[in-house]
C-alpha cells in the first residue's frame, strides 16, 4: 500500500506492506538511523519517535499507521542555524550521555514533555521518561539534563 506522511517537516511517500514496522521504514527506507532498535517489544524506548507530537514505540507501530500523520525523529530536532537543539546541548552539558544508544529516545520523550509542561517537577520528569531505559547512567544525570533544558528553554522565551 501507498502511504504519505510528514517526516521532520518534509512530505514523504512510501510503498509498504502491512507487516512493515514504522521503525524499519524510517531506518531502512528513509535512512533515518538515529531511531534505534533495542528490545523490539516496546519496553526499552530506544525506538521512540513523536507521532503528532506524542512519543510512541516505532518498533510496535505498523508503518501503515503513519499515513496522514506528522512524524518527528531525532534527525528532525535542530536548533537555530544548524546548532544542537537546547535539549541536546543540555544532555551533553549534564553528562547525561554515555554509550548514547538510548539518547535519541530520551531526548524525544523530553521534547514531548517540555512542549506540554515547560517547568516539570522531578517526579513529572521521571514519569515522562519511564518508558526509556538507560543501562549506563543511572538516570540521575538524565533527569538533571531535562531540568536544565527546561530552564534554558524558558529563559529563551
Amino acid at each position: 500500500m501507498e502511504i504519505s506522511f510528514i517526516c521532520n517537516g518534509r512530505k514523504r511517500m512510501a510503498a509498504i506492506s502491512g507487516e512493515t514496522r514504522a521503525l524499519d521504514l524510517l531506518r531502512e527506507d528513509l535512512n533515518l538511523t538515529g531511531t534505534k532498535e533495542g528490545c523490539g517489544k516496546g519496553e526499552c524506548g530506544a525506538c521512540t519517535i513523536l507521532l503528532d507530537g506524542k512519543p510512541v514505540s516505532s518498533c510496535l507501530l505498523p508503518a501503515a499507521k503513519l499515513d496522514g500523520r506528522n512524524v518527528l525523529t531525532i534527525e528532525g530536532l535542530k536548533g537555530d542555524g544548524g546548532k544542537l537543539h537546547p535539549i541536546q546541548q543540555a544532555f551533553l552539558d549534564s553528562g547525561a550521555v554515555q554509550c548514547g544508544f538510548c539518547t535519541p529516545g530520551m531526548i524525544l520523550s523530553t521534547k514531548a514533555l517540555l512542549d506540554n509542561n515547560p517547568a516539570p517537577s522531578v517526579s513529572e520528569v521521571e514519569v515522562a521518561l519511564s518508558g526509556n531505559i538507560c543501562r549506563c547512567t543511572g538516570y540521575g544525570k538524565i533527569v538533571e539534563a531535562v531540568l536544565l533544558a527546561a530552564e534554558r528553554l524558558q529563559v529563551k522565551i
Partner: protein
Amino acid sequence: MEYYKPKTAGEAVSLKTDSRMYIAGGTDLGVLLSEFMVQPEALIDLTGIDELCGVFKVDEGVAIGACTGISLIAESELLPACLVEGAKAIGSPQIRNMATIGGNICNASPCGDTLTPLVVLEAVFIIEGDSGERRVKIEDFFIGPKRTCMSPEEILKIIIIPSRSPDQKSGFRMIGKRNGQAISQVNAAVSAVITGGIIKDIRIAAGSVAPVPLRLKKTEDVVRGKALGSNFLERMKDTAEQEVSPISDVRAAEEYRRKVAGSLLESIFRAMRKEAV
C-alpha cells in the same frame, strides 16, 4: 500482507476472515507479529472508525469507544477515579499513547490494569458481529486467560459505565517490579457508595490472582454496612487472601499474591478514610 482501514464497524466485520486479524493500538499484537507467533494474511485496523473513538455522556452513564487511547482514559474527567488510575498504571507514555482500552479488554490478560476497575464499575460491553449487535455484562465476558466470549469476527464497540451515585468513591492500586513499564503482579480496585460514613454499597475486585479479573463477593460481604472508619480491615484482608486463587509464575509467587491482594485493598480503604476526613 494487506492492511485494511475500514471506516465503519460493519465494514470491518465484513472484511474479517479466519486468516485476517483485527488490530487496534498494536501494542500486544505488534510483539506477536514481530516474533511470528501470529501470521495473518491481513490486518484490519479499527482505529480509523469514528464511532469507536471518544468518551461521552449517555443516558445510562458514560460511554467509551473501544478504540479510545489509554492516554485519553488516563486524563478523562468524565470517568471514575479507579479507571483513570488503572489507565495510568499501564506501560509507559509510549505504550499509553498507542494502546486502546478495547485492546486491553479484548486481550483479556488476567493482569490488565483497566479490567479490575471495569469489573467494580460493572461495565457493559456493546459488541457487533455478523448477526448484529449484542450487549454483554463484564461478569460474562472473560472466560479464561486471554479468552473472551466474543466470536472471531466480533468487534467490541462501546464500553458503558453505568451511572453512579454522587456518593460513589473508587480507587485502584497495583504492584509491579517498578512503577513504569511493569506488568501488575497484583492489582485491585474498589467502588463504594459511602453515605453518612457508612459503606452502603461495595464492589471489590482483584487482578492477576485468578484466570480472569476476579470479583471478590465474600470480601464485599465483610465490608458492606460497616462504618468507613471502623475496624474491619484485618478481617477484610484475611477474607480477600482466602478468596483469591492465584498461581506462582515468573512474576510472583502464589503466597505473595495472596498477601498483596489484601494489602492493596487495605491501602485503598485507608486512602478513602483520609479523603473522608
